[in-house]
């Protein structure tokens, strides 16, 4: 049974076709990669999936439930977590406070309860402390607890953002270039980490990544996108052997590699 599925997603920005009849499907507990050259529509697809963009036509379903018209926060509450290519954290708050904000979904105390310090507020605050402790232990970020995002390296922030989105306990995790802008050593740690997250939390992961070795080693299936169209999908080996993919994406990568060396 597919957990997250899209059917016939189309989106145009003026004359530019951003998404062209995109149909993808992700199963429970699967790690799926999304590759494609810059401007292929990868982040646009993520924005449509998470509700930040409305497609011209098409459907998005999560666990057989149609979420095409759901607002971003409703999709988050339905179990769809995502990170951004440009990290979005709350800069005025410490890591601890950022992760407390991220526990919103699991709490229920009312405004009045907080203002009068009622028992329901007390229970909420005890729970939030426990949950933040647990997630800091899971991602091993305890030593950054009282730092603000501005004081931390980009790589560390990627892990903090991951901790925040995992706090949602999502069923599907959309990761937009988790390895971009971080050190090689940190990027290498990411592959095992993603598998660990999938095993421990049991969520499916759909990721965009330009680090090809990482993407191909961690993904069980891969979709290749170009000009907003799915040009290939299958196992990493099948997709990297595909003629369309070679010409549109890997070819270009090889050329830049040559130019860089």
């Amino acid at each position: 049974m597919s957990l997250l599925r899209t059917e016939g997603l189309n989106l145009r920005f003026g004359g530019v076709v951003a998404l062209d009849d995109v149909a993808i499907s992700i199963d429970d507990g699967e790690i799926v990669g999304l590759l494609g050259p810059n401007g292929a529509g990868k982040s646009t697809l993520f924005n449509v999936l998470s509700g930040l963009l409305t497609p011209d036509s098409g459907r998005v379903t999560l666990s057989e439930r149609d979420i095409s018209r759901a607002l971003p926060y409703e999709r988050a509450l339905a179990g769809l977590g995502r990170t951004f290519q440009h990290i979005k954290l709350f800069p005025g708050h410490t890591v601890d406070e950022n992760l407390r904000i991220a526990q919103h979904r699991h709490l229920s105390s009312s405004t009045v309860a907080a203002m009068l310090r009622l028992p329901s507020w007390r229970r909420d605050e005890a729970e939030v402390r426990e949950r933040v402790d647990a997630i800091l232990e899971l991602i091993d970020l305890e030593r950054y607890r009282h730092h603000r995002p501005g004081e931390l390296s980009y790589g560390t922030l990627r892990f903090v953002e991951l901790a925040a989105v995992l706090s949602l306990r999502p069923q599907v995790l959309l990761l937009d270039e988790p390895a971009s802008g971080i050190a090689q050593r940190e990027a290498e740690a990411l592959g095992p980490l993603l598998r660990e997250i999938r095993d421990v939390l049991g969520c499916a992961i759909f990721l965009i990544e330009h680090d090809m070795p990482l993407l191909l080693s961690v993904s069980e299936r891969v979709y290749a996108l170009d000009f907003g169209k799915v040009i290939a999908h299958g196992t990493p080996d099948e997709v990297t052997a595909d003629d369309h993919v070679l010409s549109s994406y890997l070819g270009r990568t090889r050329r830049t590699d040559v130019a860089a060396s």
Partner: protein
Amino acid sequence: MSTKVIDTSVLPKTERRRRAPSGTATAAAVALAAAAIVPLLLGDFASFVGARIAVTAIIGLSVIVVTGYTGQLSLMPYTFVGIGVFVAAHTITGWGWPFWFAAAFAALLSVPLSVLVGLVAVRLRGFYFAIATLTFASAVGATLFEWDAFTGGQKGLSVARPVVGPIDFGGDKAYYLLCLATVLLLVWMVMGLQDSRIGRAMAAVRENETAAATLGVNVMKTKLVAFVVSGMVAAIGGVYHGMLLQSVTRTPYQTPFVEAVGVTLVILVVVGGMRSPWGPFIGAAIIYVQLEVFRTALFLQYFIAAVTAVAFVVVLLKLPDGLVGLIKHEAANVRRAPRRGGIRVAIIIALNVAVFYAIWRLSQ
């Protein structure tokens, strides 16, 4: 959640930072005792000024919730104050209700209006939110407050100060203590909001609406809750404002005054500190005490606006968290290096006293 540890030792090391130990409780107790006693010793006029400060602090708390916590600039706090003022006039003086019941009723009555305005305003961001509230302030002033049966027309209405059992709050000293107790209660309540599900959602909305929504926060609902709570607090402030003045008219709650006092209140809260429930209290205290001191110095009167403007710009540039931020900063300095920090604080206080003394001498 499993306690399985995922190794992130590849991440760069930083030293663990510790929370500062809190020795602030005693200092706060001393400050509060001084706030309660000093105006009483100085007499009726000082107590009236004190009550004015406390009432302004209550109204300022409404700004803390919607602007400080949630980041939405509402310029209609005095519309809700107006509702409180006239509700107090009818219920306390007209119908003989106890003041606390009138305050609760005013808070409740503000809800339909704030929901109505809120449903429009929460769809807007930043500048547009502010303009929407400004428009509604003007509209309510031209409709609800034009209703003579509600506002008493040109003559206005009178509001009695309460008598509770054997205690008569009619005098300025007793009324000051009542206002002080109320503002402390409301500061405590608004403070509770900060560390709660809804308070954290407000902070998230303030800093990044998209990120907040991604984490499951209903941005529009959060803004609406903030706006409604803010309206209720302002309406309660209005009841106390009415009892403070004892005679009220509609003019301050209509264009152009209602907009002007709304902006002035926001300035006062920014100077005091936007992120702390103590901000309005400290901002009101500093500004009103200065105004009273400057008022006696006739030849300096004309400089008040200039001095205020300079102080405001300095706060904006150097003290994003206002005077509360300054106090916290200096308190941290004292804790870290008691002697040097103590000397710094002594110099700041001495400079302030010197300026006040000089103005007072010059005005004699």
